[in-house]
């Protein structure tokens, strides 16, 4: 009996067809998703000075999407992403490489960080190739995890 219960819990957690499982979960997911995404961007941007960064930010964002996946199912998640997670992965890798181009063009050693600091409305803004690279890491982490999640939670597997 115990085993059956396990399978039932698992089915419920990764349910794909039935969206009427839990009102609380659904309501919470809708509210939490945008908040958690904003928080992940916050972690990404502040990462250079405070705990955070692209890797952690990407994990938080992937967590947000997986909550959405568990609540509404794979089809809803695919609608939410208007590109395939594999494309997010590719864009992340591409940004990681793009971050190396400015130092190459300015004749400095590979991966030398270049900074652009200016004041915008009284706030000091620091833009850099490092930030581009970190965004690349952020997107790669999201892409990796969501590629895995969507591959495993394939709707075709739950037809029975």
């Amino acid at each position: 009996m115990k085993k059956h219960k396990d399978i039932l819990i698992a089915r419920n957690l990764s349910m794909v067809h039935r969206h009427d499982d839990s009102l609380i979960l659904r309501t919470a997911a809708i509210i939490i998703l945008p908040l958690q995404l904003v928080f992940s961007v916050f972690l990404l941007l502040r990462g250079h000075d405070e705990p955070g960064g692209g890797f952690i930010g990407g994990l938080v964002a992937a967590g947000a999407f997986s909550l959405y996946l568990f609540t509404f199912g794979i089809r809803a998640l695919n609608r939410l992403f208007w590109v395939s997670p594999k494309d997010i992965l590719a864009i992340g890798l591409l940004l990681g490489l793009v971050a190396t181009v400015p130092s190459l063009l300015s004749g400095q050693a590979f991966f030398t960080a270049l900074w652009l600091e200016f004041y915008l409305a009284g706030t000091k803004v620091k833009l850099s190739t490092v930030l581009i690279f970190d965004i690349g890491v952020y997107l790669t982490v999201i892409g990796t995890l969501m590629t895995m999640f969507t591959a495993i939670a394939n709707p075709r597997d739950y037809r029975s």
Partner: protein
Amino acid sequence: MFVFILIIVLLAACSPILVPWLASRQKVGLLALVPACLFVYALTTYLPAVADGQTFLKTTQWMPSLGLTLSFYIDGLSLLFVLLITGIGTFIVWYASDYMRNYPDLGRFFLWLFAFMAAMLGLVTADNLLLLFVFWELTSITSYMLIGFNHESEKARKLALQGLFVTVGGGLLLMTGVILLGSIAGTLQISEIVQQPLAAQGSLVNVMLILILMGAFTKSAQFPFHFWLPNAMAAPTPVSAFLHSATMVKAGIFLMARLHPALGEQILWSTLQLWAGGITMILGAVLAYTAIDIKKALAYSTVTALGTLTFLLGIGSQAAIVAFVGFLIAHSLYKASLFMLAGAIDHSAGSKDLSKLGGLKKTMPMTFALMIVAALSLAGLPPLFGFIAKELVFEAALAANSGLVLVAVTMASLSVAVAIILIIKPFLGSDALLPQKPHEASFPMLVGPAVLLSASLLFGLWPRLVDQGLIQATVQAVIPNAADFYLSIWHGFNAALGLSVLALILGIVLVRAWQPSRWLAEKQRLFSESVGPEAGYFKLMDFIVWLAIKQTRVIQNGRLSNYMTVIILAVVIPVGYTLLTQHGWPDLPKVAPPNIYEVMMVALLALSTLFAVITPARFASIISLGAMGYAVALIFVHFSAPDLGITQVLVETLTVLLLVLVLVKAPGFSSYASRGEVIRDAIVAILLGVLMTLLVLAALNVQWAPSISDYFIENSYELGKGRNIVNVILVDFRALDTLGEIFVLAIAALGVYSMIRLRKGSS
């Protein structure tokens, strides 16, 4: 030159969007303007200066710590190749815009074509040996993508892989060779290495020479690696004309010529070149004569030409180097044309089979006329530049010794035979039964051969156009302090002319023997398929697959606990042995007594681990594993590593979610293991735990080198402009590692995706 390469790379990157847009307006040919502009720029800006003996060197930093600089060097030799790549490239792009019109995925084709062009330009202008290697491998990879362009055909995929294995395998040898050369010569900059002949001798030098030659021989299809080149003809014809006759296959030749001033006096170097070149020349010529497929015949004739070039470098006298440069130019002009014309015949008549084609003279008169000119140049008849080139080859061989003359005459007479057959078989004779109704080739498909052959004719009639400028500068680059020389089409009645006449007569005899010798050709083909080097290649591939299957059956028996046992024991035994014999049993360090939080955290950790092991319920097991991870995160936070703590929490959460998703599909959670197996697994697990504990204890006592963390702590804000040291390390100090890691992540994700999804698709 860097700008040249960047322009082409940019064009390649835009191709997937640009080409379909142009194709919908029937204007793909406009793409040819880009290489054309580069050609004109190189011709007008660099050529006059280089002809005056100037050279250009521009260096930009890339990875100074590895000695890898982005340095580009232009002298006669590299300029000659730049002109060939951009000049022939222009017409190839134009040609392809029409030839490839009905192919799907045109954007991808031009993407790889331009990517190849950029890599090739980089290869011939690179001044740093490592940079040269980078471009070298890029040409192999782009060539692979282009040979396998029809990726739905299994044959194309297989042959593309063959070309890749041979050239990349050679590339690895080359890499070892250039690193050795760099350490022997004390610099990686080619312009410095070629300043004087390499004085060093000895076995290390010999190993280096052999490794570099292996790289060059595989790339340039020298015996016994010649077999990949004809097989590369699975590529669309524009690719064959560009990569596999005019440019990429000459990369090995280029490298040998480039290093000639430094290595040319090494006996081993020139001997190997003479032998490999000589054998390749004759073998290629015989195989070209026996081939029936028109593209195969041309491919083998290219092998012959590459052999001739290697052979001339092996002779190494000034006459040989002048012949080398002349032959290089002549061959690039006529062979690219021949390929384009062969493609036009295939495109129009739908067949490449020399024994089936016939009577195309009436329907394709322009193609016929151009084919005659191109074939005359191949045969080495006046007044084309091919004639001058061939006379130069004869003179070089005559000046060396009589055995070499024999090789050269054999090569020349077989080339004459092939050239005449290329005219007679497709165009003359009675109308053949063809798969489709032939029509005259279109303008874009004929303009390339027309222009290139006009150049061949002009250079033949007025060699003055090239000999003082380009050829002189190129010869100077290969042998410094070369004496002045002049080329002319008429040398008077001399031995070289006599040999030309002899070759012509022998060639005509061979043409008459062509039809009767077909049975012999068939025999020869079967023979080389069963015992030739290509058979060796396939045997090797089969052996690798066989070995993989065998060892998979033995090692990968599908039980996770066995894998884990093997992996853990493979770590525990050697590491534990080394630790205990080299270091001894580590002492317990003196630590402050733990406070209550620490005790609680460890207790939580231990309890959740224990629970995960003993619980019979699957979910409880996973959740308690998660709890264990959280306890580890607590420890990180407690010892002020917030980044690690956050990461640990997030990774644990996501891992549990992934496990839950997988669980749905897993079969029931029953125990398959016997009591004995459980005990065995427990012992293995405990061994690893003990080993790790001992290692940590030992690491606390030992400090080999000063810790790098002080440097990071001091410089994090100074150099990295960040106060979060962990993140500064990740994205700045060790960004290259991170870049590697995100690529690993991506590959892992794609691996998971393909294992789960693609298996489903096939069932």
